[in-house]
């Protein structure tokens, strides 16, 4: 299908190299190392899901990849070293939706990295924003204030802004944590469609392990700032490993060929005196 971006998709641009590679990525926060030497690689068009318990460093890893927190080690994008908003777009966990700002205006902000310090959006920028809005089915909402949108609509608008950035790599920080199940799947399907159509590479911090296994090509399990396991869902979703990392007994079931992570069944304690 037609690519909304004026650029070639990442898969052809990268000429075989990875879309993202980090070596010994470390982040210190108030004297404590919260990311302790992460090595990872993302191929063009690949979806890497970052999983791990709360406080494992998922968000920190994404923020470091986006260049929002100072880090040591190397981050290499397909076009070269250093994080640049033209190389990587970010869908934040809880984006700030400014009062009264329209969806069109919000999406057009995605063009910031392509503008000079004092220049205004050109016709091309407006066309790109319009195409992204149309593509995500947001066209009718263009003039609506973002604060008046439903949760699912707002999430799509945020996605549209990231897409208007035309970066070959998209970072999503638990993009669906505020949505109901239907909208969660809807947003993830949308991201999946985009990466299949454009060769967009995706790194997403995901809470729900079953959803992560369904959508991602590979999982990166981190705990306390360290990579515990990386690989295909079948390899990483090991009940013993997960139980150890998450500190509770978990089991992995295969349902219609999809891996589903559940709390392990445990003997139910019955109130005393009750006869079964």
């Amino acid at each position, binding site marked *: *299908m*037609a690519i909304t971006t004026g650029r070639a998709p990442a898969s052809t641009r990268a000429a075989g190299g990875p879309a993202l590679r980090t070596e010994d990525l470390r982040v210190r926060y108030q004297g404590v190392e919260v990311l302790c030497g992460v090595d990872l690689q993302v191929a063009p068009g690949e979806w890497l899901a970052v999983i791990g318990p709360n406080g494992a460093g998922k968000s920190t890893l994404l*923020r470091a990849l*986006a*260049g*929002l927190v100072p880090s040591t080690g190397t981050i290499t994008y397909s076009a070269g070293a250093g994080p*640049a*908003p*033209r190389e990587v*777009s*970010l869908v*934040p966990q809880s*984006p*700030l939706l*400014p*009062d*009264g*700002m*329209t*969806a*069109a*205006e919000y999406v*057009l*902000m*995605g063009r*910031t*990295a*392509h*503008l000079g310090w*004092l220049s*205004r*959006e050109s016709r091309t920028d*407006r*066309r790109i*924003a*319009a*195409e992204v*809005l*149309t*593509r*995500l*089915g947001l*066209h009718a909402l*263009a*003039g609506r204030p973002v604060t008046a949108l439903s949760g699912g609509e707002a999430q799509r608008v945020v996605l549209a*802004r990231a897409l208007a*950035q035309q970066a070959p790599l998209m970072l999503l920080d638990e993009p669906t944590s505020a949505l109901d199940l239907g909208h969660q*799947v*809807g947003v993830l*399907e*949308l991201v*999946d*469609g*985009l990466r299949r*159509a454009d060769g967009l590479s995706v790194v997403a911090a995901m809470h729900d392990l079953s959803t992560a296994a369904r959508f991602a090509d590979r999982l990166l399990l981190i705990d306390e700032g360290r990579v515990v396991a990386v690989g295909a869902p079948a390899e990483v979703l090991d009940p013993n490993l997960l139980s150890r990392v998450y500190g509770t007994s978990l089991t992995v079931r295969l349902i219609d060929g999809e891996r589903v992570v559940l709390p392990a069944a445990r003997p139910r304690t019955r109130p005393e005196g009750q006869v079964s």
Partner: protein
Amino acid sequence: MISLRPVPQRAPELGSTRELERAVDRSFSLSWSALLGAAVMVLLVGLLSASSGAAGLPIAGVTSTLVDRLPGVSVPTSLSEQQQAILLQIRLPRLALGMLVGAALGMAGAAFQGVFRNPLADPYLLGVSAGAGFGAVLALGFGLDLGWGPFAAVPAAAFAGALLAVTASALVARGSFASPATLLLSGVAMAALFSAAQTFALSKLDETRSREVLSWLFGRLATSGWDQVILLAPYVVVCGGVLLMHRRHLDVLRVGDDEARALGLDPALSRLVVIVAATLLTAAAVSVSGLIAFVGLVVPHMVRLVTSHSYRVILPLSALLGAALLAGVDIGARTLVAPSELPVGVITALVGAPVFAIVLRRGVRGA
């Protein structure tokens, strides 16, 4: 891959860009009608102001005299020589000063609301005005009447004081992303501190000098010819121009520093540029007209109420509306208790305090 919801893959039709442009235009392109409306308002208030006062001048005469002054135009005027002198030597300089101060405070207010993401920010409330006042009192009181026009010592001292105050406010509130309330409280503390320093400096002056400085501090638009206008105009043009050029930045800053940086804007740098320009603008206004409260708060909110929340609209319209508002308020200041005069700052505070209360009641949002 299961497909629960198909990705909408409708090819963008030809009309879609135009439709989007219309949506964008509605939100942040400054419409000609709004601009024209504001300009007409400035003109009408200006004519009204020029014709009202102790010596009433007919509006028609004022208009014809002014049109006659345009290069290459010659129309007969009904004003006498003396009336023309009043108009050109007394009324017009004061009107121009009022408009420049109003435009400066309106734009500075909008800019501060933008960079601090705080709908209650205002040069007066942030302590910027108090800091500028302190600097100016020092310079005025101790006879630092050096320099000329925009390069005089008073605006320089006012700028130093203002910069000190805004930096201190932001630092005490722990950075620029402090909550509206925190920033405001630290602004109030800074305003109190600098007012105290001001009072102390005043008490060290002799009586004539201190009365003179005190009446200036209350916020007045007294002029002696075109001197103050010449001092202020370059600041309004240059700093106002810088602010207008950064309108887009103010909109991007609305999503917060992290997202702005992820989008490719250096929030610290653009905030610095805007704060310096707005502070300089405030300092220049304070050094010619003293402390005029609430204009910077009220004007951007009036613009938001009738047009849009985008700084691309708010900033230019705040300049025009600020000019009209202060010129209008000054008519009251000159005529309400004639033959004596009210400090214009008293009236703006009377109007501004209730508006502040309303904004506060409606909830701190919208910047």
